[in-house]
């Protein structure tokens, strides 16, 4: 009985890659919490965490340990199974998206084996991201409902309507980008943005779709439930929102999922609009490192990670700069501004492709 006709080397390669990516996103998310507190401290003229280790670098570990050892309380009147399922779903959907991000160019070993730095190059690429993002709201919704708490329920209803509203604008803004690339595969989209300058124009999609980028970024803020769109957990109205009844590591999972989401969505935004692992003068660098091709791959991965870190920093700066929106303002922005702008952007892009550039 032949079950699988896949060679074992591929399976080992993928298992290693998946483990590294999962561990990497957990580690980056951990230090994103540290980074956020430092950024907040700098912007508010404070010092920030500085007790655990040099510069407070061990603070995330201390926080994690504290959350693990806290007493776990499941409310008496909650729906127990769904209450536990909520944070699990939040964590699962946060980690799943990283499977299709191309982290670096293919590396060819001496024996001619091609090692791909992408877990799965599926033909539907970006739609997979949408599928997972649209499922992401279940963690918040189910957790908030199962807590049997008014504030949690209000928060989960807010989260659901916010997610649905902003998914629309996000999808339409992406259609314009996809008309340019002509492919849904993230690998293909990255390859098209090779280098920095091509045929007398910038090759990164940000320069071809600036309006689409702004809409996509705004919607990403809303989908991540991050300030200024953190209405589902706005403490001045809802105490803590959907995770009010949660304690111990279940609360930790909800808080942590937000940081993982931020990391993965930064990676997606960078891949779609800022050339992924491409960087200026990459052809020259590749030529210079011909003797050691692995060096070029590492430089590419580092270029991607640098852009991702810059993107995460941007998310943090915005959080500590802008005040929170009111709920009706949020809905008005989504439905009356972003969707019409995205539609016009799509139309203009279509006209330009059809008549001006004659693709």
């Amino acid at each position, binding site marked *: 009985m032949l079950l699988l006709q896949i060679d074992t080397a591929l399976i080992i390669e993928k298992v290693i890659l998946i483990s590294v990516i999962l561990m990497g996103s957990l580690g980056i998310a951990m230090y994103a919490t540290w980074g956020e507190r430092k950024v907040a401290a700098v912007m508010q003229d404070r010092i920030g965490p500085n007790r655990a280790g040099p510069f407070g670098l061990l603070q995330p570990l201390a926080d994690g340990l504290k959350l693990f050892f806290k007493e776990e309380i499941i409310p008496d009147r909650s729906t127990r199974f769904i209450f536990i399922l909520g944070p699990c779903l939040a964590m699962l959907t946060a980690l799943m998206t990283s499977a299709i991000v191309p982290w670096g160019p293919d590396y060819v070993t001496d024996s001619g084996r091609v090692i791909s730095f992408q877990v799965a190059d599926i033909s539907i690429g970006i739609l*997979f991201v949408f599928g997972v993002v649209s499922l992401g709201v279940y963690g918040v919704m189910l957790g908030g409902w199962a807590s049997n708490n008014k504030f949690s*329920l209000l928060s989960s209803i807010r989260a659901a309507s916010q997610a649905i509203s902003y998914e629309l604008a996000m999808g339409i803004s992406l259609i314009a980008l996809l008309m340019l690339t002509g492919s849904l595969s993230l690998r293909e989209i990255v390859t098209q943005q090779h280098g920095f300058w091509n045929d007398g124009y910038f090759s990164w999609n940000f320069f071809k779709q600036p309006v689409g980028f702004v809409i996509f970024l705004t919607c990403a803020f809303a989908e991540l439930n991050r300030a200024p769109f953190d209405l589902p957990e706005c403490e001045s109205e809802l105490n803590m929102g959907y995770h009010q009844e949660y304690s111990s590591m279940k609360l930790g999972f909800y808080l942590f999922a937000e940081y993982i989401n931020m990391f993965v969505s930064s990676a997606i935004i960078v891949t779609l609009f800022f050339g992924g692992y491409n960087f200026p003068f990459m052809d020259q660098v590749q030529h210079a490192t011909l003797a050691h091709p692995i060096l070029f791959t590492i430089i590419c991965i580092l270029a991607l990670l640098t852009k991702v870190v810059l993107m995460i920093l941007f998310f943090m700066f915005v959080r500590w700069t802008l005040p929170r929106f009111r709920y009706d303002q949020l809905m008005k922005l989504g439905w009356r501004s972003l969707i019409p702008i995205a539609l016009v952007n799509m139309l203009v892009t279509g006209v330009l492709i059809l008549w001006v550039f004659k693709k």
Partner: protein
Amino acid sequence: MDIYDILFWILSALAVGCALGVILSRNPVNSVMFLIVTFFAISGHYVLMNAQFLAIVNIIVYAGAIMVLFLFVIMLMNLNADVEPQKGQMVQLAGVISGGVLFLVILASIKTAKTEYMDKASTDIGLITNLGKVLFTKYVLPFEISSVLFLSAMIGAVVIGKKEDAKPPSKADEAEMKQFL
């Protein structure tokens, strides 16, 4: 029996079992969750048939959007077993008869349908390029007509949902609001 058959049977059992769970579970939230798992199983079938686009659109549209709205409504209704209205015998009888008739029609249509065996995973009509080409050439008229239908349904929903001219709340409304608060 290769991996394809094994996956097929697992997914089929999952789909049928969860579909039964939808109608048998007492708690509507559990029903919704069973339905979501059913959609995932059906998407798995699409992937087995190499129709990845259909699979992911099924998840985005049904599991990701429509079921969220279902859950939304159920959460707002606060359904409990003791406040649930009990249906009369006549209503139950009518339900059984109409359901049975529908079942009979489906059974008859399946029985007379011509069954064709698909070559395992060799078809690629479900991939986005091929699907797009077929939709915009061979079936362009039905496609456009159905999109106009969707547009009119959307406009209808907006018209129904649009508020009348804002008027000050009446005495009865205020009393109701106080009770709610």
